[in-house]
Structure formats: structure tokens, C-alpha cells
């Protein structure tokens, strides 16, 4: 009986996207300066950027993304070598040490929004859920700026 109540609580926490009772750390994550660029249609991937600040005392690890906007959102990283050759690859888990920030910004880490379900329209926003290793989740509204935007200010 006890375990089934616990399971129900656990399941409902997951369902409404709140951190579960077991979380350690991810509730201390603050997301700032989220932005993305408008897409042309849905055939090509979009990208979103933001800063993750860990205000807590434990490291937190971002393990995945979810959004109704895209079937396959994933953190990718662009790297540029000494010869100026840039390429992109999945970044894997992203650890944010306590008291530090990790920036998702052009030319580095970005939320790669693959298999767009709807067009990204300038002036609108979309919800992006960040899933953390401790089971916690955080949903942010990401503003969609113009296609030629250069940063969170446009």
C-alpha cells in the first residue's frame, strides 16, 4: 500500500513535470537569456540557446530535452579546430558545477531541434523542458527571434 502511494506520487510528479521528492540539485538551476531563430518551414533543424546557472551546492547534470516543437531535440556541440574547420556532434550529458554557469551559445553548445513539427515563427515562444539526472525537470519558454538574430537581444 505504502509503495503504491509512493509510486502514485512519483508518477504524478513526473506527469506534471515537477521535481520528484528525490531530487538533489536541479531545483537550483536558473535558465536565463533563452532564445532561438525563426525557421523556414519544418524541413531543417532549428537551434535554441540559453544560459544554465546552478545556484545550488551540488553539481547538476542535464541529460535530455523535450518539446512539442520537435520530435528529436538534443544538445549538440559545434567545435572549431585550429584550421578553422567547424563540425557538430551530440554533446552528451552537460554537467553544471555548483555556483557556475554553462552557456548554450552560437558556435558552441546548442539545443538542436530536429524533426520540427511546426514552423518556428518570429515573435512566438515555445516550451522546452530540460530533464536532469536527478529526475527533476524544468520547462522554459523560449522566445523565437528573427532568422538573422545574433543573440537574445535580437
Amino acid at each position, binding site marked *: 500500500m505504502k509503495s503504491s502511494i509512493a509510486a502514485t506520487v512519483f508518477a504524478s510528479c513526473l506527469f506534471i513535470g515537477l521535481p520528484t521528492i528525490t531530487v538533489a540539485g536541479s531545483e537550483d538551476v536558473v535558465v536565463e537569456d533563452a532564445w532561438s531563430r525563426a525557421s*523556414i518551414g519544418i524541413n531543417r*533543424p532549428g537551434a535554441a540557446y540559453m544560459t544554465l546557472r546552478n545556484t545550488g551546492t551540488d553539481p547538476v547534470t542535464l541529460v535530455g530535452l523535450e518539446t512539442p516543437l520537435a520530435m528529436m531535440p538534443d544538445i549538440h556541440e559545434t567545435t572549431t579546430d585550429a*584550421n578553422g574547420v567547424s563540425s557538430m*556532434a551530440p554533446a552528451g550529458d552537460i554537467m553544471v558545477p555548483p555556483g557556475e554557469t554553462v552557456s548554450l551559445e552560437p*558556435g558552441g553548445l546548442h539545443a538542436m531541434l530536429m524533426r520540427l513539427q511546426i514552423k518556428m515563427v518570429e515573435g512566438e515562444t515555445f516550451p522546452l523542458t530540460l530533464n536532469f539526472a536527478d529526475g527533476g525537470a524544468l520547462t522554459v519558454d523560449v522566445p523565437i527571434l528573427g532568422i*538573422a538574430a545574433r543573440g537574445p537581444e535580437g
Partner: protein
Amino acid sequence: MLWGLAAIAIVGFVWLQVSSRSDQRTDEPAFRADFELTDHQGMMQTDEDFAGRWMLVFFGFANCPDVCPTTLAEVAAVMDALGSDAVQVQPLFISIDPERDTPQALAEFIPYFDADLIGLTGTADQIKRTSETFRIYYEKIEEAASPDGYTMGHSSQLFLFDTQDGYAGAWTYGTPAEEIVSDLRARL
């Protein structure tokens, strides 16, 4: 196989030394822009079509959501900031993903960045030859977690060619538009 050969062929080329920008206008440039490609409106374009204008050239691919739109946004900001001097500069985007980047595919996104920007693409062979004359590197990277199962690695500098097609310098990825504008103003 073809891509492998292309990559091997290109790897042998001398890398551009981005840091050694030559301001010696009397010197023969390291190389000259040389291409024959199709623009995003379906018109054939060669380097000669832009004679008399400076060329700002960036290589990339339309499926690239990060480095390519970021650089094209910087190029658009550069063109804006140049004001009336912008007529002396032709910005060009050359695709290194001929498999996906048809002229029609480029037509869908090129005009959104800057009215003067011209997107260029071609057959796999034309793109390979272009990369050799520009001494840039590109490769197809198989990556299951990417759209269509692949992504492209490519030289991401913004190249500048003078009014006689001569290589005049390059800015590394991420150089702010303001810096590019002041460099350009000193040369125009």
C-alpha cells in the same frame, strides 16, 4: 566512397593561414577565387560576374542550424553597417552539401538574411573543384543523431577577395560584425 576520396584529396592542400593577413597590395595574392556555380535563382555565376566588387565568401550548408545562420546574420549586419559602401561588396554563401542544397533549397532561406546575399551550389564535382580552388576543407560526417543521418564539417572562416578576385584575408568564425566592418572600411 566519393566523399572519402574528396576528403583525402582536399586534406593534402595547404591550410590557409588565417592569422597572416597580407596587407601588401603590391604582392600577388596567395590565390584567386575561381568558380562556376548555380545561384539560388537558378542562374550560372562565375567569379568574373563579380569582378570590380569585393567578395565576402562563406562556405556552409542549409541544414546547419548554428554556425551558418550565425555567420550569415553577421554578414547581414556587416552589409547594413556599410551603408552606401555596401554596393562595393558582394556577399556569397557557397554550399558544401550539394546532396541537399539544390538551388531551390537555397532559395528558401538565402533571401531572409540579406537582399544582396547570393547562395551558390552545384554538382558534387563542381563543389569539390570549388573547394580546391578556395583551399577550404569539408567532409561528410555520418552521424545517426543528425537529420538524414549526416552532418557536414567545413571551414568556417569568412573570406575576403579583392576586386580582382585575389585572396585578401579571412576572419575566423565568431568575429563580430563590428570588427569586420572596420577592417573592410580600411580597405574599400
